[in-house]
């Protein structure tokens, strides 16, 4: 077979031939073909198997509404299931495979399902797979999983890249058929910023598919001329291969532009597709209309297509669906197909029209009747007709074009819950009154079905839309072309049919709809879910109308009263990759690197994600294979000599202004107004309800200048909170907040030798002695011969410790300097694990303890809440429930057996008695192994914990079978008197 069905003409480029494979067999087509048109040209009608019954199926349509001809396109990691053959642009080397079969397409072993169709009707799974219960997991579920779904995934990572982008315009025109082209041309000539988008690779819509003329030009030639003019205008952006996938709030549209899908592979570095967000002042929806079929017995055979699709294949792709074609119609448009085919030399064996007053023809037989059956399992061979007089006739043919009328393509008008309205004259739904912001509808999408009407409505809509936004425009002169009225007799299905399909993709039949009605699922939303009508990848584009018309008839109501379901984005299936864009793998979210990151990487540090930050977790030395070896060593090094840790990530907020101190008095529950210049103070921030929000330090560098720190995780929430307080609660206060987290590289230098080390870095005019710079001091200093820096004597570890900050650009140089000069003290870099162990040993609260449920009192800081000033949270912190006896109190926990671990998250139970929620005494928040103490330790909360030091209890985790004997101790395991940090 070699393009046996090619006709003359069309809009393909015969000078370019493409070789492609379908199910392993090689075929040829031309540039401008789709996969479907090329297969039809080669005489291939069988293209897939239906979802449930595995019936042989061929292509039904010529557009993105296709329900049957779904293929797996490409192979390897780029394999994509459920690709519609009707929209795949043919390219050389294309590989496609049919779907949903076991064995070859022609001999699908699962076709046996069709024999059990009586058992596989709508909703059968609600009545089956129940007995025996044991079969569900081992038998039924695997079978259903194997059978369910359409197509298969490669299971490999998508190797393509996808971009995203943002576009702005005055007018977005969706659809480049006659109405859309007229609208775009009108607006383009007016100077407005216009975007014209069409999902096809060739603009023109139905103009490319019809044999009509516009003035003295063929319809495609007119379309080409208009597109050329539009492309020449600098204010117009013409977007081929771009599907507007959804109408979103505020006049924003999502659009997927297919950059590389028509190439065998994308060019290196180029995206496969781009997801555009289009912000437009006005929109014209010119998406045309989609033809609908009629249901009759065995209406799903390969070769049975929409009549307009057969016409499209003939006129645009120069392909005859078959040498012998029959048409079945209820409206004049079906006859248009017959006329065009006849003019091209294709044999029209007959036109079957349900109307008594159907137009006659001298070129082919027009019969008043209905198609009642078909033959030809793997491809149509014959249609059986019941004539109006009751006689039965058969016609041999290889293709049947069915036309049941046209549905305006109203999808996007419904994306924000708009409901279409019914029009009797065209027997179709048209857009309702509630449209997305700024949208108007033109052409067939609004129910104007003639070419003249579409052109006129397009230019009129553009003028009206531009007028609203103050742009003057002039309507274009409409060319002379057809202006036929709609003549239709509503006809949805042939009575008496037993196996007649409504939703081809989900294998939903007329009988299923009758069953749904019988079982009480009569509302259209129930009909949809019970039968799965309209729930496949085509969203029921060719089936919704027929389904609800039948339900309306069964329910004895009118079609508009039966109602419609809601179309939702995306308009057509959209690759998840394009929603992800570049945000995948390592680029899923941006990284924040500390100033010492490069140096830490050179040391072989293990890193951990802390939000977006990459923090060094520990620094393994050669020979250390387990993380505990490194962490234990780092902890011991800090307590015996000196360690350095990058603490840049902690939030730093500059608080300045004449009332900066007063402001901090509001923010923190403890007092700051009297904090002297050159001093730091620990601050506890409460929420309005009295619960602890965050803690940190505030350092007073001048009367009107503080530097406030926050925990890493809360840097943004605290800053936001402080801005809210500044702007909304105390707008009259003179205070300014500036985030400086990233402005300064900051290192903690901790341990008995920390002062000695820093004396080698900080310029000598700063006296670091304990008298001159006691615990909780701060100052502007200089380092290394004059670089500005800030020094804070604060300690998270409980050791003699400082934090030294320099402008970020010098952070890398500073860490290297610290390591170099600290060599004599065996300075040890330590990471977040050691940082955590050190603070647990000291008993400092951190995020685990400030967990959104704990109060200052729980943390053992009840006295910190000042009673002499008002601050956020102070009043509600005194609520009776928060201060009643039995309140949780922070305690330390150690195992009685030093070899036992202690697990964070475990609960505390009395030494004897039940282990259950009713007897719960508290829980563990932080736990670690203490290399200084030689056993596990933990911090947690215990009811009346401050009164229970020394008590023996049980630490339990019932879910994981843990029960450990423990003792309650002070949370300050190391240096409880604070002598080391005050040294």
């Amino acid at each position, binding site marked *: 077979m070699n393009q046996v069905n090619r006709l003359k003409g069309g809009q393909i480029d015969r000078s370019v031939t493409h070789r492609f494979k379908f199910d392993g067999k090689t075929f040829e087509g031309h540039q401008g073909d789709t996969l479907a048109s090329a297969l039809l040209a080669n005489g291939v009608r069988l293209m897939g198997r239906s979802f449930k019954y595995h019936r042989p199926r061929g292509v039904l349509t010529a557009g993105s509404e296709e329900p049957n001809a779904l293929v797996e396109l490409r192979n390897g990691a780029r394999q994509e299931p459920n690709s519609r053959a009707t929209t795949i642009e043919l390219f050389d080397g294309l590989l496609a495979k049919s779907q949903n079969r076991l064995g070859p397409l022609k001999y699908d072993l699962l076709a046996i399902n069709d024999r059990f169709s009586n058992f596989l009707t709508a909703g059968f799974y609600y009545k089956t797979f129940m007995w025996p219960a044991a079969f569900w997991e081992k038998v039924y579920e695997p079978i259903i999983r194997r059978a369910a779904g359409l197509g298969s995934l490669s299971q490999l990572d998508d190797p393509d890249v996808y971009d995203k982008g943002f576009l702005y315009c005055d007018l977005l025109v969706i659809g480049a058929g006659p109405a859309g082209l007229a609208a775009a041309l009108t607006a383009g000539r007016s100077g407005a910023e216009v975007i014209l988008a069409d999902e096809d690779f060739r603009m023109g819509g139905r103009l490319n598919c019809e044999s009509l003329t516009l003035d003295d030009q063929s319809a495609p030639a007119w379309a080409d001329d208009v597109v050329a003019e539009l492309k020449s205008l600098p204010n117009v952006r013409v977007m081929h291969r771009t599907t507007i996938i959804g109408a979103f709030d505020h006049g924003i549209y999502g659009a997927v532009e297919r950059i590389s899908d028509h190439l065998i592979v994308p060019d290196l570095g180029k995206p496969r597709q781009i997801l555009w967000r289009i912000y437009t002042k006005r929109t014209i929806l010119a998406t045309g209309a989609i033809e609908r079929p009629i249901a009759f017995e065995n209406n799903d055979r390969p070769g049975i297509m929409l009549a307009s699709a057969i016409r499209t294949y003939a006129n645009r792709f120069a392909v005859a669906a078959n040498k012998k074609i029959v048409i079945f119609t209820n409206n004049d448009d079906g006859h248009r197909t017959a006329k065009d085919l006849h003019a091209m030399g294709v044999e029209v064996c007959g036109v079957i029209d349900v109307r008594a007053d159907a137009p006659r023809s001298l070129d082919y037989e027009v019969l008043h009747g209905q198609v009642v059956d078909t033959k030809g399992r793997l491809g149509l061979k014959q249609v059986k007709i019941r004539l109006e007089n009751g006689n039965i006739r058969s016609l041999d043919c290889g293709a049947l074009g069915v036309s049941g009328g046209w549905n305006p393509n109203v999808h996007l008008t419904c994306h924000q819950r708009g409901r279409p309205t019914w029009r009797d004259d065209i027997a179709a739904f048209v857009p309702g009154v509630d449209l997305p912001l700024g949208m108007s509808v033109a052409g067939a999408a609004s129910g104007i079905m003639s070419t003249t009407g579409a052109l006129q409505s397009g230019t009129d809509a553009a003028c009206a839309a531009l007028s609203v936004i103050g742009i003057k425009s002039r309507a274009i002169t409409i060319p002379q072309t057809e202006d036929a009225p709609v003549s239709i007799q509503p006809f949805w299905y042939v009575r008496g049919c037993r196996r007649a399909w409504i939703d081809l993709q989900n294998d939903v039949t007329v009988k299923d709809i009758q069953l749904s009605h019988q079982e009480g699922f009569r509302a259209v939303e129930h009909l949809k879910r019970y039968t799965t009508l309209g729930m496949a990848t085509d969203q029921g584009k060719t089936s919704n109308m027929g389904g609800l018309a039948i339900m309306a008839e069964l329910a004895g109501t009118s079609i508009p009263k039966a109602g419609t379901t809601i179309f939702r984005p995306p308009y057509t299936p959209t690759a998840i990759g394009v929603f992800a864009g570049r945000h995948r793998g390592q680029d899923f979210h941006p990284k*924040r690197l500390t100033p010492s990151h490069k140096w830490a990487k050179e040391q072989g540090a293990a890193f951990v994600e802390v939000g977006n930050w990459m923090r060094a977790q520990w620094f393994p030395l050669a020979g250390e294979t387990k993380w505990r070896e490194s962490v234990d060593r780092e902890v011991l090094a800090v307590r015996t000599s000196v360690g350095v840790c990058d603490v840049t990530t902690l939030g730093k907020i500059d608080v300045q202004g004449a009332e900066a101190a007063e402001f901090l008095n509001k923010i923190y529950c403890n007092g700051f107004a009297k904090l002297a210049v050159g001093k730091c103070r620990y601050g506890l921030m409460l929420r309005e309800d009295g619960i602890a929000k965050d803690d940190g330090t505030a350092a007073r560098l001048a009367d009107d200048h503080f530097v406030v720190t926050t925990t890493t995780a809360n840097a943004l929430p605290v800053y936001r909170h402080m801005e809210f307080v500044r702007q909304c609660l105390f707008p009259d206060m003179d205070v300014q907040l500036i985030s400086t987290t990233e*402005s300064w590289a900051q290192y903690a230098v901790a341990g008995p030798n920390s002062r000695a080390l820093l004396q080698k870095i900080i310029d000598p005019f700063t006296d670091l002695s304990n008298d001159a710079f006691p615990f909780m001091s701060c100052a502007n200093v200089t380092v290394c011969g*004059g670089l500005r820096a800030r020094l804070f004597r604060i300690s998270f570890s409980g050791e003699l410790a400082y934090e030294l900050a320099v402008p970020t650009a010098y952070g890398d140089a500073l860490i290297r*300097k610290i390591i170099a000069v600290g060599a004599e003290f065996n300075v040890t870099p330590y990471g977040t694990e050691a940082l955590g162990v050190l603070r647990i040993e000291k008993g400092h609260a951190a995020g685990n303890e400030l967990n959104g449920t704990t109060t200052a009192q729980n943390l053992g800081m009840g006295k910190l809440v000042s009673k002499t000033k008002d601050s956020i949270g102070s009043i509600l912190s005194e609520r009776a429930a928060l201060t009643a006896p039995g309140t949780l109190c922070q305690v330390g926990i150690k195992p009685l057996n030093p070899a036992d671990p202690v697990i964070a998250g475990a609960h505390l139970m009395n030494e004897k008695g039940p282990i259950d929620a009713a007897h719960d005494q508290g829980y563990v928040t932080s736990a670690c192994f203490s290399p200084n103490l030689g056993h596990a330790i933990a911090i947690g909360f215990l009811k009346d914990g401050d009164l229970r030091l020394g008590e023996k209890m049980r630490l339990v985790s019932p879910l994981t079978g843990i029960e450990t004997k423990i003792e309650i101790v002070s949370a300050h395991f190391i240096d409880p008197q604070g002598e080391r940090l005050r040294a």
Partner: protein
Amino acid sequence: MHSLKPVTALGGIEPRTDVFHHLSIIENDGLALASFAARRGFELECQTVLKGLLGVVPSVGKAIFNDPISGFWLGPDQWMLTAPRDSHELLADIVKNECGAAASMSEQTGAWVCFDVIGDALLAFCERICSAPIRQMQGGDTRRTSIHHLNCILIKQSAGDQIRIFGPRASADSLHHALFTTATALA
């Protein structure tokens, strides 16, 4: 003179430049930045100071390019000032001396990475990286925007084919990666 050498935001000794045929992405390591926030009751005085420094006070969404100090609007009575780092490394202190207690200044140099992007494909580039309406922006227009989930500031320079992007310094690598891959996609 101190002995510590700075590195650029991308971690190099020298700033990085990526040249494509249609676009160049230049890491601009030569700027000092300082935030300027007027204190209550001193708003007019601050306007005078800024006028003296910049010639014109940047209005909402605008940047003023002056020599040596430029500036752009950040929020009500808040601006960011920039100047050559070589001559104005202590920009925050320099301006603080001018305004005294009238304004709160903070050194911002270390918090930002700056990329200048120049080239014919600039408009298409901007459309891919952020939602700033670049085709409608005039020279000096400034927008807060999001690039690859990073809060950035985009300034359209006076010259039509150049923009300046300020992004968070700690994410300089991620931001650069986003710009670089977009430029590659447009090549």
